[in-house]
């Protein structure tokens, strides 16, 4: 949404009036607030989803308020009776937390026009999945001449002081830990081998970023040459000419669904439903699949094509087959302990 002076004035006056006459707030609803993710997703949603939603709903006002999943939960939890967000977007770990804490409204499946067209794993009645995210290896093609093929390549001696990872605050960091634990005989319930492997990675580590967004900056500055990375997060960098490429490791890239939820007690329930419908619609998903967004669709009516078909999978069935899906219910059980442990042990 563009902020004009008139807009700002209006908001200020409205807020002032609401303050002076609190009774107004009861009837006078705020615009729909959609907490999307920062970075690529914010840009994609601003350019495609928001216009599509407004066109279909008589130019209804809405606001994008991008933030991490965990911050969305904190904000809603702080004011559960009058939440400041209407629509949440979640990675699988936080989604399970949000549902368990009773912060989401069940999706009105019977009213939905698109729910039944979603591929089966995306049909979650607590909040359907509008897209998938994939995590593989990202690298700088200018300095890394032979593309990496496996997670194990991160440990190769030539990458001494060139590897970046993120800490476990993010889905990316946690998913990576679980994956390398599995590589060394562990599982979602036992990441001990993963911690041992990260310990051996220390000589190669140039940076442990505080969040996935920082990895992008580090690539741009030449601070790191290779890292586990999100396919979508690098697309915008690539479009701006930063030398960075994505490759799916031969063990299989990690995939997870991102779910979209109506917040419990939202004052804009109807519009929230409409926004989610727009996000599930084949038109929006087809546009988001194109360059430069390259967001993996979940609607079975959208045929996967272009760059996505080339790099990731040619259809959703292949995606299901080729990619690794992790058990986030199991991961959530011990994630707090892992974060504490990572705090203590991983110092470079």
């Amino acid at each position: 949404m563009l902020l004009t002076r008139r807009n700002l004035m209006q908001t200020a006056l409205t807020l002032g009036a609401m303050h002076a006459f609190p009774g107004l707030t009861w009837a006078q609803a705020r615009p729909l607030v959609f907490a999307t993710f920062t970075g690529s997703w914010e840009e994609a949603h601003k350019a495609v989803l928001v216009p599509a939603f407004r066109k279909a709903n008589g130019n209804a006002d809405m606001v994008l308020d991008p933030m991490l999943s965990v911050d969305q939960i904190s904000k809603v939890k702080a004011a559960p009776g009058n939440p400041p967000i209407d629509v949440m977007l979640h990675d699988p770990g936080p989604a399970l937390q949000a549902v368990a804490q009773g912060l989401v409204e069940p999706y009105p499946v019977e009213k939905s026009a698109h729910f039944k067209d979603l591929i089966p794993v995306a049909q979650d009645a607590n909040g359907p999945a509008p897209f998938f995210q994939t995590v593989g290896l990202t690298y700088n093609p200018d300095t890394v001449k032979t593309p990496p093929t496996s997670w194990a390549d991160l440990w190769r001696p030539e990458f001494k002081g060139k590897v970046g990872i993120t800490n476990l605050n993010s889905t990316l960091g946690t998913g990576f830990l679980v994956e390398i634990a599995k590589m060394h005989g562990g599982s979602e319930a036992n990441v001990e081998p993963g911690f041992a492997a990260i310990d051996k990675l220390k000589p190669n580590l140039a940076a442990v970023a505080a969040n996935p967004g920082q990895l992008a900056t580090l690539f741009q500055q030449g601070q790191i040459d290779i890292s586990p990375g999100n396919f979508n997060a690098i697309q915008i960098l690539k479009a701006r000419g930063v030398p960075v490429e994505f490759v799916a490791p031969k063990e299989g890239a990690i995939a997870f669904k991102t779910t979209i939820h109506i917040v419990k007690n939202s004052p804009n329930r109807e519009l929230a439903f409409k926004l989610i419908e727009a996000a599930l619609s084949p038109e929006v998903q087809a546009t988001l699949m194109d360059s430069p967004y390259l967001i993996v669709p979940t609607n079975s009516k959208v045929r996967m094509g272009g760059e996505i078909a080339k790099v990731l999978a040619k259809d959703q069935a292949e995606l299901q087959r080729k990619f690794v899906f992790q058990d986030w219910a199991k991961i959530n059980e011990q994630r707090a302990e892992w974060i504490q442990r990572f705090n203590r042990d991983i110092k470079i």
Partner: protein
Amino acid sequence: MRTNLRDVTVYELRLAAPLAAFFAVFFVAPLLLLFVLSLQAAPDGGGYGVAQYVAFLGDAFSLGVLGSTLWLGVKVTALCLLLGYPVAWLHVRSPGWAKGVIMLVVLLPLLTSVVVRTFAWIVILGRQGIVNAALMDLGLIDTPLRMLYTEGGLVVALAQVQMPLMVLPLITALTRIDPNLADASAVLGAGHWRTFRKVTLPLSLPGIVAGCLLTYAAAITAFITQSLVGGGQMLFMPMYIYQQASTLQNWPFAAAISIIFLAAVLLVVWLFNLLGRLSRGYAQA
């Protein structure tokens, strides 16, 4: 006649009432809520007690985080003082036009957002950054040094970001010193160094204390700079609180850490104030 005269030295407390009310509602009340929350035994209720405080104070790792945060503040403050004092001194001794230029240079960082300044430091300290490129061109190093995501880099970046907070009080304090005092000291046979040590430095102590206090408080709570330049493996209190509150949803523990951090900072502030009071006595003696 006497009844018409009012004692002008009496404080008019009512004038402060609006601000006091504002503070009571928006500062004291949330703080009390925070304190109550910190007494909860578990995130989902489960009785009240001091369990969270015991957990923090009995954990060597957590105490280490607190210690390294307070120590980081000391290093940043010392560097700011070391670099800022000459600038303030130069400002006071310069002719009018140069004063303007120095003041502009000092204030310039305040005109850009702290996020922008911090990103500039990422560019400066990076592997292909200005510092590494210069050192390599001069042939002093073969491979780039790792400066980003190290504590040394963080201290330098924080010192630059917080520098105005140190220089401005110093300028105020130094301006207030009568220049005749330095001349008198010289006439009485003291060299420049002795004059500085015996006259200028003691008289500027109130400014030093005020500047250190501001810089210290700003440096230890600088969440953005700490996480962007320090990275994800260096844990300081602000990030620790965020991690517990947001990622782990452990609000009682996060609240307890916040209260402990607040108490530790208050202790440091109290120490500074004590120094300030001593210095006033010293300056007047």
